[in-house]
């Protein structure tokens, strides 16, 4: 029951951030009739899609919470991608592709199928590291966002399984949350 509540909460968290994403796009497109029609159409089918996912019961009990090394995978992926992309100037797609490919070689080199989880965690972290320096302006913030994405990654291991873009949604949640803390909470603390 407790697991079901956790996964239900994570499902709602992911839906919440996806809805915020499309809602902002919707309000920016209010002046464009064609875009408005397309977004209305998308939102209608998005609702149907969410009902489809709920019907499929994609969340269930799992003991993945014990796998703390996945946090580390997310942090490494985020820091490595950010460093290669911005500090070495190779660009965010090259760096994410490189980090993701190297991470995906781990289960092949170790002949251990279980390490596929780690390669997924590294690739998820890589999406965090694709953030602009205007958003995450130092490696400490990137590490914090990576840690957050690790927490969401582990907690959501059985939520929205098999849906393309799930890891990106996790990265978006962690980057947006890090930005929220940076902009409001830290500013509030320093103003005291």
């Amino acid at each position, binding site marked *: 029951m407790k697991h079901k509540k956790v996964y239900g909460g994570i499902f709602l968290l992911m839906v919440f951030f996806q809805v915020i994403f499309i809602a902002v796009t919707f309000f920016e497109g209010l002046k464009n009739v064609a875009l408005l029609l397309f977004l209305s159409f998308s939102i209608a089918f998005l609702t149907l899609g969410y009902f489809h996912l709920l019907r499929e019961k994609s969340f269930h009990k799992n003991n993945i919470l014990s796998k703390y090394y996945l946090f580390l995978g997310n942090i490494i992926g985020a820091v490595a991608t950010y460093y290669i992309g911005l500090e070495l100037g190779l660009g965010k*797609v090259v760096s994410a592709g490189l980090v993701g490919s190297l991470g995906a070689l781990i289960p092949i080199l170790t002949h251990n199928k279980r390490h596929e989880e780690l390669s997924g965690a590294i690739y998820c972290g890589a999406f965090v590291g694709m953030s602009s320096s205007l958003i995450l302006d130092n490696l400490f913030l990137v590490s914090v966002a990576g840690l957050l994405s690790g927490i969401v990654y582990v907690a959501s291991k059985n939520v929205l399984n098999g849906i393309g*873009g799930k890891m*990106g949604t996790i990265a978006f949640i962690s980057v947006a949350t890090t930005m929220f803390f940076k902009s409001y909470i830290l500013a509030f603390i320093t103003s005291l």
Partner: protein
Amino acid sequence: MEEITLLFVSIFGAISTFFVSQKFDISSVFTSAFLSFLVAIACHFLSGTLSESLEKNIPIVFIGASFVGMTSPKIISQMRWIALAGLFFGFIYMNASHYFSSHGGGLGTTAALSVIVSLGLIDMFHALHKIKNKTS
């Protein structure tokens, strides 16, 4: 013309990742990452022949669409629906808020939205198909 090119890249990114991953039984993480890496490198070397906008956007659209192609065949089994989700990705990407363009995970969120919209469409398509079969 550039928008049409990006829509094609979007469809190609989704179906190539899905196809290679399923056909050769390679992990979707490796397929997405490696194909995106190759496309980004190719765009870098073709920098003289592509416009500045395409050179910047093709790798981004490709990696985002490749997230769509990472969808499990248990969720979407047919290539045409993956192609449709890829097309949705292209549309949403081109119209997505600039507010989120610098956030990591923005592409993945767009990909997830595209896949879930496609799931809604598949449901409606199946429902209509059932109604049609009952009435005929």
